């Protein structure tokens, strides 16, 4: 090996293993097989020595094989910052682009083990623009090591990392005060940082914090006790990580919960529910309840390929069979019958936004929680949290890496638990419905009880009665298309034709909506979403009253049209795409808006500096390049007749 290693000690942490490996491999295997597993995250920026710390842990636990060390020794000369010595950081930074820039931009997972325990380290970047990466790494960690530079003390980022760690509910926090070598190993420096941190952490409610003074570069208190800091009589970082409690006692003692992942039905005689237990424990004979259906039964067997089990606990992946033939499917939750999980469809949550495209209130997203995927809409952003100061501020939308307390509504009632009680039934991800990207992650705090308290007023005169009186089937004919495509013109003619046929209609367009109901809204993306949401709600009420509703709005985003569609019953939403090439619409320019937009006087104008997402499969398509407005209107009426909208429903 060509590089000069500054501290080539292994500190005795593996000496006994070495003896066993060479002398009694069976004894070694026996011991290694019974090790526990600790997952931890390291937070701090490159400047705090995070990669150096992990590199040293890997090096000293002999995970690094000689050929890898040779590669690193060669790369240390090329990119290293340690003047020919091994740059441990190079072991850890994975992707080539990162290596050359000298920064870590993603979550990297590292593995090492000692005589006592196996470790999985999530190494995450420290800068604010990588908040989402840190949250990702923190979500599955049992412990967090927060590095801070002894020279600098607590920085904004130390506070940010601590906040995120508390937000994700990590139980053990280690404050690693690094670079003590550069502060003359001074005890008072360490004490002052601890004092300041204690005060700060109090407000975050972190359960257990341990502070360790160290030098990752020199190796002091990483795996071997420091001779430079005799005043510190505590354990080393590794010593602490080896002894922290891995399993969450509270989770093991909590009421039993298992989201059903997959129904195992190899033949008619076997019906098993496969899943991972998210809390508590279960034994054959236990009384259970399937949620949301509420049906009850008892556990018959806990089936595994190694034979039936007597008991299974949180974290186990099992297959359960029930004593009774009751139906449960993926997304349902099997709970202990006396203390089932909560059920609701409106929640207060904290959401971490993870995508470049901002989160908009009112826009529907897919929400995955446990094994269920539902549609969810953020009904309001209560406030955004400044991750550096922890101050709360009002927000209309959440940008990438922002964190906000939001109310959400799901399209159906789901079983859940507060994240603080059960991460498996309280943590969720949000998925964009068009791109399928994972755009956010969230933690449920509690259900907003409105779902239980506000019951829909049961009415005697229902929609079919009103529809029959009007001799029509109520629906929304939703015209969409570019400005100047002819939506209002065609809708207007359609309404005249329907009125002539004796039908009851109402036309919603910019003139009667923007000046009243929506006069508080502008033209930002967030406002456009809210504009369409309100129109959708009003149209839904009008459909309920029995009317054929015509709407004429650009409504450029697919997701908002999908939202409007979801507000009425199946078959009542007739998306009508008025197709016109941009060049034709711009040439018509009836209100002179395109010219203004081209001059830059009008921002966010659809087709110019804001996108129009054409419908993928509209119910009706009219091409105004190929037909007149009159012909287009005739076509729409013909389609409505064909769909049976112009005759009354049959009543029982």
């Amino acid at each position, binding site marked *: 090996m060509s590089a000069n290693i500054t501290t080539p000690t292994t500190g005795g942490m593996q000496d006994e293993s070495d003896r066993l490996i060479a002398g009694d491999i069976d004894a070694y295997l026996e011991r290694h097989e019974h090790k526990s*597993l600790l997952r931890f995250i390291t937070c701090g920026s490159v400047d705090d020595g995070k990669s150096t710390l992990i590199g040293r842990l890997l090096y000293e636990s002999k995970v690094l094989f000689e050929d890898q060390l040779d590669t690193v020794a060669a790369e240390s000369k090329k990119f290293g910052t340690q003047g020919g010595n091994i740059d441990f950081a190079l072991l850890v930074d994975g*992707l080539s682009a990162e290596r050359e820039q000298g920064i870590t931009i993603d979550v990297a997972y590292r593995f090492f083990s000692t005589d006592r325990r196996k470790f999985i380290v999530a190494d995450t970047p420290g800068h604010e623009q990588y908040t*989402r990466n840190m949250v990702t790494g923190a979500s599955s960690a049992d412990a967090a090591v927060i590095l801070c530079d002894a020279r600098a003390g607590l920085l904004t980022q130390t506070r940010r990392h601590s906040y995120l760690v508390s937000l994700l509910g990590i139980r053990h926090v280690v404050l690693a005060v690094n670079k003590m070598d550069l502060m003359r190993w001074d005890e008072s420096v360490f004490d002052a940082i601890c004092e300041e941190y204690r005060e700060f952490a*109090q407000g975050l409610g972190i359960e257990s914090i341990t502070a360790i003074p160290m030098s990752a570069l020199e190796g002091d208190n990483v795996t071997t006790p420091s001779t430079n800091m005799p005043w510190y009589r505590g354990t080393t970082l590794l010593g602490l990580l080896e002894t*922290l409690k891995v399993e969450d006692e509270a989770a093991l*003692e909590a009421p039993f919960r298992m989201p059903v*992942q997959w129904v195992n039905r190899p033949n008619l005689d076997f019906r098993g529910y496969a899943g991972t237990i998210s809390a508590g424990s279960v034994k054959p004979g236990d009384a259970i309840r399937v949620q949301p259906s509420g049906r009850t039964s008892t556990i018959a067997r806990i089936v595994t390929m190694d034979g039936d089990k007597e008991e299974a606990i949180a*974290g186990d992946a099992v297959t359960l069979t029930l004593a009774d033939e009751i139906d449960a499917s*993926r997304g349902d939750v099997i709970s202990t019958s006396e203390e089932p999980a909560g059920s609701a469809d409106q929640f207060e949550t904290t959401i971490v936004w993870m995508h470049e495209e901002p989160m908009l209130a009112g826009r529907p997203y897919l929400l995955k929680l446990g094994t269920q995927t539902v549609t969810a809409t953020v009904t309001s952003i209560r406030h955004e949290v400044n991750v550096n100061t922890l101050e709360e501020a009002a927000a209309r939308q959440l940008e990438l890496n922002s964190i906000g307390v939001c109310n959400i509504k799901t399209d159906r009632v789901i079983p859940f638990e507060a994240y603080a009680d059960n991460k*498996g039934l309280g943590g969720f991800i949000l998925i964009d419905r068009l791109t399928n990207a994972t755009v956010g992650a969230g933690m449920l705090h509690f259900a907003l009880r409105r779902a239980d308290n506000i019951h829909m007023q049961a009415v005697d005169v229902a929609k079919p009665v009103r529809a029959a009186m009007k001799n029509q089937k109520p629906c929304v004919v939703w015209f969409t298309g570019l400005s100047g495509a002819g939506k209002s013109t065609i809708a207007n003619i359609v309404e005249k034709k329907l009125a002539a046929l004796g039908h009851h209609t109402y036309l919603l367009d910019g003139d009667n909506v923007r000046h009243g109901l929506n006069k508080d809204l502008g033209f930002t993306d967030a406002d456009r979403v809210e504009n369409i949401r309100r129109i959708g709600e009003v149209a839904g009420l009008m459909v309920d009253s029995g009317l054929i509703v015509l709407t004429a709005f650009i409504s450029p985003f697919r997701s908002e049209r999908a939202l409007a569609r979801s507000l009425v019953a199946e078959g009542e939403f007739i998306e009508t795409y008025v197709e016109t090439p941009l060049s034709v619409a711009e040439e018509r320019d009836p209100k002179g808006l395109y010219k203004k937009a081209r001059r830059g006087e009008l921002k966010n104008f659809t087709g110019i500096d804001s996108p129009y997402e054409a419908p993928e499969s509209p119910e009706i398509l009219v091409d105004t390049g190929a037909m007149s407005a009159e012909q287009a209107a005739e076509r729409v009426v013909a389609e409505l007749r064909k769909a049976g909208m112009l005759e009354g429903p049959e009543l029982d």
Partner: protein
Amino acid sequence: MSQSVEELNQLRRQAVELRLAGTTVKDTAARTGLSAPTITAATKAYRQGGWDAVPVGPRGRPKGSTNTTAPAPAIAASQPLPEIPELTIDPARRTHLERLEAESLHIMREVVAEADKPVMLYSVGKDSAVMLHLARKAFYPAPPPFPLLHVDTTWKFRAMYEFRDTIVEDYGLELIRHVNPDGIRQGVNPFTHGSALHTDIMKTEGLKQALNEHGFDIAFGGARRDEEKSRAKERVFSFRTAEHRWEPKAQRPELWNLYNARKRRGESIRVFPISNWTELDIWQYIHKENIPIVPLYYSAKRPIVHRDGTMIMVDDDRMPLNPGEVPEMRSVRFRTLGCYPLTGAVDSTATTLPEIIQEMLLARTSERQGRMIDHDAAASMEKKKQEGYF
């Protein structure tokens, strides 16, 4: 650390009383100033041993314990009662292998629940053996509800083909074997075309063909994060474009055990259920679970020749020998398995699993070094992955 032991025990007794009276852990914490784990531990102690079990003894190391340092001074965060980590081995109820196994089973079930047409890439090696074993556990008593796909370069060891066919037969599995017909037509082989081109055409292109041809939308792979640096950053659910490209910058965040398996038509996902296993975990698990593996992993006398500092086994008569060259019979085994002309053997006497593990732990040369395809640049694997290799 201002409390005496007696004060603390008073609080512990009070906490147990509150819990027995139905007070929540949170409220008990607020009223006693104890942390949630302490309250839980005290309550548990009461349930198991009555009131006598609730108090804790004086703090500090028991006399006679050696080789441990004192616990770190903890900072009280919310309340003046620090949690002092006790320097004893945590009696965790599940071992690391049990936790890894549970995670893998969860991942496999997610795939089967959400995929339209899943498949398992089966390379016949030890990682595939573990992956297949986990699949049998995940869906037991049903058989794995997907076929195995072997992208065959036609240059694997004969022992691998025999082993593959036996396993498929014994477990009653469906196996799809795919060979790139273009490669066969062009007579691609590792000797005249070199390892890089051979791997690209027979493996990377072959894999893409097979996935397209059968319309598989999610494919299990046996890659592990500890194998190589670029893999350390890859997600468990690794999204591929319709062209099978991996975009390292556009990876989906993966939180908790929630995996996003949604995709558009033509796009696909590679799923790595043993991402968090290390080489030692794999061996240990094979040992513990008695999983069958290809005999080439065990030492035996085999005919080898030396090529560029690597020992290559002469597995059939397609191997061109230099004039006058005679294969040498030598006790060797293989640490990884692939195409025989590209896979280096190591000198070994290990004929049992514990001996293999012993050898591995003593050898200290990382696993992939035996594979010639990784020898290019440090970032070569990252580049291959972007192009669709695995």
